[in-house]
């Protein structure tokens, strides 16, 4: 389907879409212009290539252009219109033409899956015209072609190969976007906020790509309807499933997965259910070592998605996710995981007016346990987020599409609770708890934006404003610090349940501009301000499961950023290639770091450990992308710098942020050798991570104590890695039963990339550095099937 529509567009370039087939005889009457736009009623995307036809006037029809716009000249009177688009329900309507009319038609998608359409709506020509920039969209088909680690297709590993994005560390799910820290990335799964998306300590992400349709990464120019993080928004859209009953699955070295999808009630209701489970630990009982034999390491994911078409104006969507990791060794165990749910309602109010209602819930928690025969301890932590979002899209006319809405999220933070149980010598059972005070945050947001097209749509302006108010709500124990980070109230102030005791608010303007210089070249610029009211208390650069989030408060300021970006975008060689160059500058206020050697563990007075300052990032991102042909993929180069200046850290002097890695190259190539054989190859290069190294030492207590002069002033070795994969389609084509074999090699040439650096001393008393690396060459094989 996707190829068909692509070829259709090649045969009928943009201008042909405006050809009106006039009919003799019509010329005698007064002609009026009927202009408008055709949009997806669910996603709000423009639909290029939609057909607008006058069924009673044989031969009168036109196609929408790449922006979904159309123009017809029609005699006055009442006319019946038929608007159709492949994969969408045909719309019939009547219009009284007594003047020139400009209108918008929303088409509802059919209930079977047409992934290609999503890609086409986001066609190169469309992307060129849009004022939005710094956005990367990937279809799941692309994600699934990238070589894998241990055979697990991982959305976040692919995200890390996009320009301006870098992995937080080897094998990690965490990522830096334009110099930001990993906690500055908002990750939404069907609009539910996720706070930790790692499985197995970051080696895998929670996203089972069988249950994912697309992902969009906003690297700074975040739409006004979204916010809450400084650096990026990663929006993951679950797959709706097709109406056809299909079973997909895969069996890999460490995990297997199975998905079922189908439709009932004439496909008015479609469903998709997907499960994944690792089983590496199934083989551990075969080990000779008793400890390893009794070790458990596994995770599972369960996804479910329902899409229910109530009528042409109303759709309901429901998404459920549950995933959990389990580790246990000897008498210790760690369990952590996410649960997320969303229930969404799309309602087409009129041809011009679309309403979307999102209700979401997410819960991330972990539970660490250790025990002996006499005593036991348990440490639990939880963060929950419940949200409501109302989005309205109103097409005032052909030139203005307004979006406005309201978002509300209530967040419960239980940073940590430790429960100790034991038996005294007398045999008495006792229990003692240490609890970090719970904290609650309530965020309310109003937003408004408009996409305004000017000068025949050569210029597009996008302007919006987002107002956020953040309230702290009891119960909690409130600690406040002075400017020297000393506690003002050592015992804390008890805040009763439900009491709103502090609030902060802010304005977040968003501006975007695009100018179509030629049909193949556009210039764009954008400005955005974002605020972040929740903060991650973690040193981890690798997706530790035992993370703690806390909200802003009287002594914890919201982090803020201003980002400006500009770029030139081009479609080359008949849109076969897309090229872009973007520059950006980001200024951060109240950016958070910790004092040196902070105490973050179960410490209720955490305010004393935090330091706030300024940061800046800037850089240039170059991208060359090919979407069609036997050889496709992208090559990107990013040069960027990122710095922090925080009183109390590094003597108040500016220092490199952990994400400061100036050079980054990503090469991701896909090659269709034959219809049965597809090869993929990627190569990643990044300047080594900043590291703090001692420059001096002195004796104390029979130990040599290191002395540092500047934070992050050195770098570890550069990171580079090549991965390759081969996908072999098995069986005969055209059969319902399809299966394929994916062979992947991670780290093809066995590069030893540093994961940790530690100090060592040889027998002569000389210090040296020792690196720990995780992976050498890691081959894997996965068998995939569908029927």
């Amino acid at each position, binding site marked *: 389907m996707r190829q068909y529509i692509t070829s259709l567009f090649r045969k009928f370039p943009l201008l042909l879409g405006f050809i009106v087939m006039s009919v003799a005889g019509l010329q005698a009457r007064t002609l009026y212009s009927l202009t408008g736009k055709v949009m997806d009623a669910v996603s709000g995307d423009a639909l290029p290539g939609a057909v607008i036809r006058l069924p009673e006037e044989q031969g009168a029809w036109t196609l929408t252009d790449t922006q979904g716009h159309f123009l017809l000249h029609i005699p006055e009177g009442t006319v019946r219109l038929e608007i159709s688009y492949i994969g969408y329900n045909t719309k019939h309507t009547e219009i009284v033409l007594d003047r020139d009319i400009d209108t918008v038609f929303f088409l509802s998608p059919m209930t079977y899956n047409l992934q290609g359409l999503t890609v086409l709506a986001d066609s190169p020509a469309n992307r060129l015209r849009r004022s939005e920039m710094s956005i990367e969209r990937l279809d799941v088909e692309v994600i699934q072609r990238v070589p894998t680690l241990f055979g697990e297709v991982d959305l976040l590993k692919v995200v890390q190969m996009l320009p301006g994005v870098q992995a937080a560390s080897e094998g990690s799910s965490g990522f830096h976007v334009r110099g930001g820290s990993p906690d500055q990335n908002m990750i939404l799964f069907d609009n539910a906020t996720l706070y930790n998306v790692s499985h197995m300590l970051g080696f895998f992400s929670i996203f089972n790509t069988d249950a994912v349709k697309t992902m969009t990464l906003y690297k700074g120019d975040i739409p006004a309807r979204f916010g809450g993080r400084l650096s990026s928004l990663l929006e993951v859209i679950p797959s709706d499933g097709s109406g056809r009953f299909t079973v997909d699955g895969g069996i890999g070295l460490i995990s297997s997965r199975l998905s079922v999808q189908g439709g009932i009630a004439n496909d008015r209701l479609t469903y998709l259910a997907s499960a994944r489970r690792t089983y590496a630990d199934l083989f551990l009982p075969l080990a000779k070592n008793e400890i390893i034999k009794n070790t458990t390491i596994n995770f599972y994911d369960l996804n479910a998605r329902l899409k229910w078409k109530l009528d042409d104006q109303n759709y309901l969507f429901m998404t459920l996710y549950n995933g959990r990791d389990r580790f246990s060794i000897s008498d210790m165990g760690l369990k952590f995981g996410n649960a997320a749910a969303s229930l969404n309602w799309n309602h087409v109010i009129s041809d011009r007016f679309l309403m979307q209602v999102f209700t979401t819930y997410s819960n991330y928690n972990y539970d660490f346990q250790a025990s002996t025969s*006499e005593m036991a301890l348990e440490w639990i932590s939880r963060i929950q987020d419940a949200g409501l979002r109302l989005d309205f899209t109103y097409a005032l006319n052909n030139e203005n599409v307004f979006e406005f809405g309201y978002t509300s999220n209530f967040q419960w933070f239980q940073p940590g609770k430790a429960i100790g149980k034991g038996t005294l010598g007398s045999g008495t059972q006792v229990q003692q708890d240490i609890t970090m005070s719970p904290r609650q945050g309530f965020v309310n947001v109003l937003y408004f934006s408009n996409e305004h097209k000017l000068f025949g749509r050569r210029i597009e302006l996008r302007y919006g404003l987002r107002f956020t108010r953040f309230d702290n709500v009891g119960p909690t124990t409130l600690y406040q610090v002075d400017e020297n980070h000393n506690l003002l109230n050592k015992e804390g102030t008890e805040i009763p349940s439900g009491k709103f005791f502090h609030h902060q608010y802010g304005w977040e303007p968003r501006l975007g501009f695009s100018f179509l210089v030629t049909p193949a070249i556009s210039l764009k610029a954008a400005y955005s301000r974002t605020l972040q009211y929740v903060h991650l208390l973690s040193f981890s650069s690798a997706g530790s499961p035992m993370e703690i989030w806390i909200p802003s408060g009287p002594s914890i300021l919201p982090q803020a950023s201003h980002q400006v970006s500009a770029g030139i975008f081009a479609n080359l060689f008949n849109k076969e290639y897309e090229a872009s160059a973007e520059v950006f500058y980001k200024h951060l206020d109240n950016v958070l770091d910790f004092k040196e050697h902070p105490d973050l563990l179960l410490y209720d007075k955490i305010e004393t450990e935090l330091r706030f300052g300024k940061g800046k990032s800037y850089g240039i991102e170059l991208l060359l992308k090919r979407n069609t042909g036997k050889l496709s993929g992208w090559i990107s180069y990013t040069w960027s710098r990122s710095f922090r200046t925080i009183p109390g850290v590094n003597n108040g002097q500016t220092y490199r942020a952990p994400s400061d890695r100036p050079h980054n190259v990503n090469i991701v190539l896909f090659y269709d050798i034959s219809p049965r054989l597809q090869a993929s190859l990627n190569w990643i290069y990044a300047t080594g991570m900043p590291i703090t190294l001692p420059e001096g030492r002195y004796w*104390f207590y029979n130990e040599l104590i290191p002395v540092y002069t500047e934070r992050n002033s050195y770098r570890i070795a550069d990171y580079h890695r090549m991965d390759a994969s081969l996908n072999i389609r098995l069986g005969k084509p055209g059969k319902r039963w399809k299966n394929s074999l994916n062979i992947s090699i991670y780290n093809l040439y066995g590069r030893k990339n540093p994961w940790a650096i530690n100090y060592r001393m040889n027998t002569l008393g000389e210090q040296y*550095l020792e690196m720990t690396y995780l992976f050498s060459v890691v081959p894997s094989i996965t068998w995939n099937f569908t029927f």
Partner: protein
Amino acid sequence: MEFHFLVMKNKRSAILVLILLPLLAGCTEAITLRSEDMEPRLVITGTLSTVTEYQVIEISSTAPYFGKDMPVNLNATEVRLNGEKLANDAPGIYSMGQEFAALEGETYLLEVWIDYDRDGQDEYYTATTTVPYVHTLESLVLRSLIPSGNDTPFVLIAGFQDTPGEDYYGGALWINNVLYSNRILRYYIHTLNDYTQDGEFLRYPVPEWFITKSLVWDNGETFDLYAGDVLTLELQTLSREYYKFLEEAKIEKNQQFPLFSGPRGNVTGNITGGALGIFGSYASSRKSVTLPECPGLPSR
């Protein structure tokens, strides 16, 4: 009972690393990365204790971190403690005599005059410490961690009366009068600031040492234990600045893991004038216990 949180707070990284080991199976390799050599800096270290013993202030200069050069001691022009001049017993070593004991609750002022930058004029460095009050170690018992209760591993349970408010504790272990805690990483520290049993009598399991037939010793060797060996625990009540210094020094000497470790940083001292080091104090109380005959311990 108090065991749980003390173990947890201090052993979290170790516990999680244990969990990670089967998963990670990472390999190590020496690398040639080196830092530049910094300009040498003056270091002044010294701790006062309430035990009557030979106590010293040491003055030295830093050495480059990488390389063969070691820090060297330096003589100062003058070193005074509460106005009294200290004897220069050896290069960079200044003592209060062989029989010195700091007094509980007393604040001591250390003053050092030294021409460190060799410009012909002395620079002046000072630091103060207030000696904490002794928390008397009233009981010391060995508790077995196995169900039968009569075999290794044992943990030492220290019984003492806590005082309300901020208290910083340290623990040093002697085995047959040999100081086992002769390195920071084998020395135990803990704060009970936020402890819910603040001010109560505590039976405090010291999680730093799990007593088995062989303990970790230097250079990959073991310190072997036998039935009948005498373990002596010194319960130290540390001055706040000394506790903080030890806490940060332990972090610096521990291994780093990206999952849990923060950035490296200088250990915070309390010497004014730009010198590194610490002038701290602690109050001491000791008690001993004898290792029993049990299946897990050989006899001498």
